[in-house]
């Protein structure tokens, strides 16, 4: 039995997960802040929208994305007019889809962490003359780092494990949109079981490592930052 592992899909998966996680850090943090500290009418409805990707089957989410970037939607036509091609079947397209797909996995731990910050700390900072921005940077953010690390790890891992969404919008282009999970799936379809098993093993080891780090971090920081 001859086995040679094609690592390219793995590299793409990691590039995708990295880019998605960086984007999510900047997009999810303000959203988490608003959801944690601002009360407004219809807030549960907004929270529910952000949690939808957890419930929606990934292929359904992917299908929505495919329609949204196609030439039947104004957004899709606008993008195609500027760039001359659709967002589907490109690496950038996968980033956009992954941001949607992993959004709740970044927002929820960060929001929980923000909500868990002792209000007294925040009040004290304010009475000592910190403005909201300073309070956020110097008090809330350091006290929430456990949740933020959680958010980063989960978004990264969730994106590496992404399948249905990429299947719908990726087009399986080698070196561009063919990620590890898709390559694995194609191996199963081609009845190349040993190749598939090898890739699955690699993904399993990776996932286990990430989760172990998350839990390790969780325990260590929880003893450092009480409450």
């Amino acid at each position: 039995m001859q086995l040679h592992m094609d690592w390219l899909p793995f590299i793409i998966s990691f590039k995708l997960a990295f880019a998605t996680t960086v984007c999510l850090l900047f997009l999810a943090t303000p959203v988490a802040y608003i959801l944690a500290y601002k009360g407004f009418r219809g807030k549960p409805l907004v929270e529910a929208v952000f949690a939808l990707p957890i419930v929606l089957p990934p292929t359904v989410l992917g299908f929505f994305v495919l329609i949204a970037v196609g030439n039947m939607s104004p957004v899709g036509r606008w993008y195609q007019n500027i760039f001359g091609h659709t967002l589907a079947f490109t690496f950038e397209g996968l980033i956009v889809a992954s941001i949607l797909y992993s959004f709740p996995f970044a927002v929820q731990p960060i929001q929980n962490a923000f909500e868990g910050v002792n209000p007294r700390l925040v009040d004290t900072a304010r009475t000592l003359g910190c403005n909201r921005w300073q309070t956020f940077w110097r008090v809330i953010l350091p006290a929430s780092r456990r949740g933020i690390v959680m958010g980063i790890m989960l978004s990264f891992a969730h994106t590496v494990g992404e399948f249905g969404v990429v299947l719908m919008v990726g087009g399986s282009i080698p070196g561009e949109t063919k990620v590890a999970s898709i390559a694995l799936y194609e191996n199963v379809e081609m009845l190349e079981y040993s190749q598939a098993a090898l890739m699955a093993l690699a993904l399993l080891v990776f996932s286990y490592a990430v989760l172990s780090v998350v839990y390790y971090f969780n325990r260590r920081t929880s003893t450092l930052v009480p409450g």
Partner: protein
Amino acid sequence: MTRLVRTILLLLFVAVSSITPVKAEAAGRVLTVAVASNALRPVQELAGLFEERYGVKVRISSGSTGKLYTQITQGAPFHVFFAADKRRPELLEEKGLIERGSRFTYAVGALIVWTKRPGLDLGSRGLTFLKDARIRRIAVANPSTAPYGRAAVEALERKGILKDVQNKFVYGENVSQAFNFARTGNADVCIVALSTIYGQDGSYFPVDGAIHSPIVQQAVILRGAPPEAREFTRFLSSPDAVTVFSKYGYSVAR
């Protein structure tokens, strides 16, 4: 709290009552059939006719040929398997997982090029038109997993234009997905089965069947299937079945 308890009881009741009919149905004669996605619609229609005439309930699972094949080798409880190719049925035969001599061709697929792009009428075109600069993305079924994808690549190779158009390819998991890519306007054209565009508008031209190996779709009766399975496959070779298959864009050469 009592309201919560009542809600839970209600949900349980709904869950239980939705399970029960399945059990009742299993008491009658039921045939479980695995169908490759591209043949789902004709087989579904024929299964309906079969149920009416023979009083046998047909339960259909559909998916890709590769997936269903894998499930069958792992003991999935299917009685009949309609594949999208002949390789997987042959493999099952080699493994001794089918009723002896039950492998037969139930349909032969036709390859077409389809578009819905305004101003891109394909009506009287041929394969070389795919080189046109207006066509930037061509959706095909993945040639390494889908028979129609392999046939498309073969045809383009035979025409000598594979190299010119290959960089325009985006790959769908199967013909339906390749079609979706073009239908949603993300690809300009798609190379799919004639059966894929059943009931759709848009324009298309057929690919000459002589320049790719025939897309032969075979079915098998799996070992241990009840006698109804034989009745069902016989029904699927009847003149009625031929009519249905050709309506959906298959030929039934035997």
